[in-house]
């Protein structure tokens, strides 16, 4: 049994970069260390790492609540490369199902809730039939955020000049999966980060003369959260491995990625709930860092397809498989 493995040194590097960098200089550090475009081919300006490498780094990024468009940059590179388009250096972002009008190389329209739109070097957007690389500097930007205060901006262009290429066949479905897979890995990490804080807090906070983690009622809650972290982590990692094995276009990848997004979304809800319950009132304030992971859990579970959206797709796959095909579907 040969299983591709991720270099532990890479995980350590990523963890230390996310732990040490401040929000303001994180992107520079990511570029200097080669983490910024880790899974992009070397001849396209990346580090040539594997998808599993990227997955491990995204988990660390989620755990540390890293302030950087790491997943978005990877997706932007991936989408542009699939269409044979160049992208500029720097952080990138992307948009799927983009309601843009493309006329030659002139692009018009509005994209809503673009992650990190205000600070990206380019937006790589997938319309019904084209991939376009747009410059946010030529857009009208209305800043917005998700509940974790990450940038989710509205960008409008009016006949802006953009690089345009035909969309590869199947791109809409495949890139929806790429986005959901990345988000699942980030969610798995954020869930672990929240649990780590809750376990640490339960060991430090004393009430009734002892650390609250000594109470069975608290232990049982944290064990439930740990089970969710384990399930979300296993689902996201396994989905990445299925994509490595079979390719993102494979039917197996469809179930794997959808399951990972649903399961990490479910874990997000439960882990955030328990982490806050264990922290008491202090975790419910801006003074405490718990919010960095829990607000991301709440934001991310609904981004790149909600758990409900992806669960409905699995429901369709299940009904199509029927009673006799269900087990084959799950074990493929």
């Amino acid at each position, binding site marked *: 049994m040969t299983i591709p493995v991720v270099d532990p040194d890479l995980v350590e590097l990523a963890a230390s970069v996310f732990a040490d960098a401040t929000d303001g200089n994180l992107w520079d550090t990511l570029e200097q260390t080669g983490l910024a475009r880790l899974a992009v081919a070397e001849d396209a300006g990346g580090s040539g790492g594997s998808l599993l490498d990227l997955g491990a780094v995204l988990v660390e990024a989620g755990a540390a609540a890293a302030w950087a468009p790491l997943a978005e940059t990877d997706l932007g590179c991936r989408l542009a490369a699939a269409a044979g388009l160049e992208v500029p250096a720097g952080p990138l972002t992307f948009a799927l199902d983009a309601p843009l009008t493309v006329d030659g190389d002139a692009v018009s329209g509005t994209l809503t809730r673009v992650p990190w739109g205000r600070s990206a070097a380019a937006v790589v957007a997938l319309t019904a039939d084209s991939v376009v690389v747009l410059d946010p500097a030529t857009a009208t930007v209305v800043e917005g955020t998700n509940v974790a205060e990450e940038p989710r901006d509205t960008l409008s262009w009016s006949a802006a000049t953009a690089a345009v290429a035909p969309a590869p066949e199947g791109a809409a479905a495949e890139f929806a999966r790429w986005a959901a897979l990345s988000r699942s890995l980030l969610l798995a990490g954020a869930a672990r980060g929240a649990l780590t804080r809750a376990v640490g807090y339960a060991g430090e906070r004393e009430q009734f003369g002892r650390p609250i983690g*000594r109470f069975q009622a608290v232990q049982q809650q944290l064990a439930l959260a740990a089970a969710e972290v*384990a399930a979300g982590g296993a689902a996201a990692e396994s989905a990445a491995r299925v994509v490595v094995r079979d390719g993102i276009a494979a039917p197996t990848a469809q179930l794997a990625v959808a399951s990972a997004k649903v399961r990490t979304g479910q874990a997000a809800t439960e882990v955030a709930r328990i982490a806050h319950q264990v922290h008491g009132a202090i975790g419910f304030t801006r003074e405490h860092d718990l919010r960095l992971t829990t607000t991301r859990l709440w934001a991310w579970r609904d981004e790149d397809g909600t758990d409900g959206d992806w*669960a409905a797709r699995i429901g369709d796959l299940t*009904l199509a498989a029927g009673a006799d095909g269900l087990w084959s579907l799950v074990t493929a």
Partner: protein
Amino acid sequence: MTQTLSRLPALTPPAAELPARAEALRAEVREFLADERAAGAWTPRSDVWLSGWDEDFTRRLAARGWLGMTIPAEYGGHGASPLDRYVVTEELLAAGAPVAAHWVADRQIGPSLLRHGSEAQRRKYLPGIAAGEVYFGIGMSEPDSGSDLASVRSRATKVDGGWSLTGTKVWTSGGHHAHAFFALVRTSPPEEGKRHSGLSQLIVDLHADGVTIRPIPLLTGAHHFNEVVFDDVFVPDDMVLGDVGSGWGQVTGELAFERSGPERFLSTFPLLAALVGELSGADLGPAGRRELGSLVARLWALRRMSLAVAGSLASGEAPELAAAVVKDLGTRFENEIIDAARLLVSIPPDPGAEGGYARLLADAVLHAPGFTLRGGTNEVLRGIVARGLGLR
């Protein structure tokens, strides 16, 4: 406000892929099961590893080489990988096939004999287990010892050439059919402050003089559980498993193997499959599709976790924490299938039906309380997880 974060222990082993060989085996098992179904050999049921006692089916499996798979050939087994066994097991459970007769022997008695058994004990039992001819029970719980297993009071007193055993074991599944069981008993008083000391495992012939077996009907009324009473039962010295006084360590090792397998999340899978059958062609609507899809996503994730633990066990590790997590999540999932079925289909459970959705639902409902109890209650398992997290 920041705090220093230490790393959590690994909650799951790395993801595992089944080897190509195991997938070829899966195809063979599916073909076999399809033939069995076509011949009407049995009806798919919920919780078959407790309730599906069918010695003919067990022998047909043995004839295919699918019992005692991990037992070495010199003891009548097949020397296969635990992952091969995993594949066969999950296929049988998913099909709702009657696996109870060989279940305990195949899952834990064989591996325990290989780990702790004497050469004579292995020769005596392993070939029969692999042939599907020798069946075992479990003799752990007692009327006053459930989660607190170290409090067992069954007592073996040294006599000439062996031990004299007195006491009572309960919840022994299939004890009325089984040939023998492993009894956890006290062979000496516990040392001061070491309540796990002085316990031993004895291999008890369930047909021996002084053994009385009484049925304990389940909620369904069916006879699977038994009370096993020993009244001065003679157990020869060569039927002590492992070392006298090492029972606790041996038993907890046994439990680790039985916590993360596919039986911890597939007990109600036949109901889920029947549910999908009932829903095909129905107008499920978006909420129903989400409910169904959410369930399948959980199943997919659970299986991946269980496989990761199996891969880790196969490479000689003992991922106790991850195994406890699989059992906690998996047995709750077995209950979630019932909840979803009731939400999505308006067919009441019918314990009198021959088969089909209504019978699967009835058996699942009436068996469900056991899912989160057997093999260590979920609360005890969460205690293990909490200890792993450094909380206790």
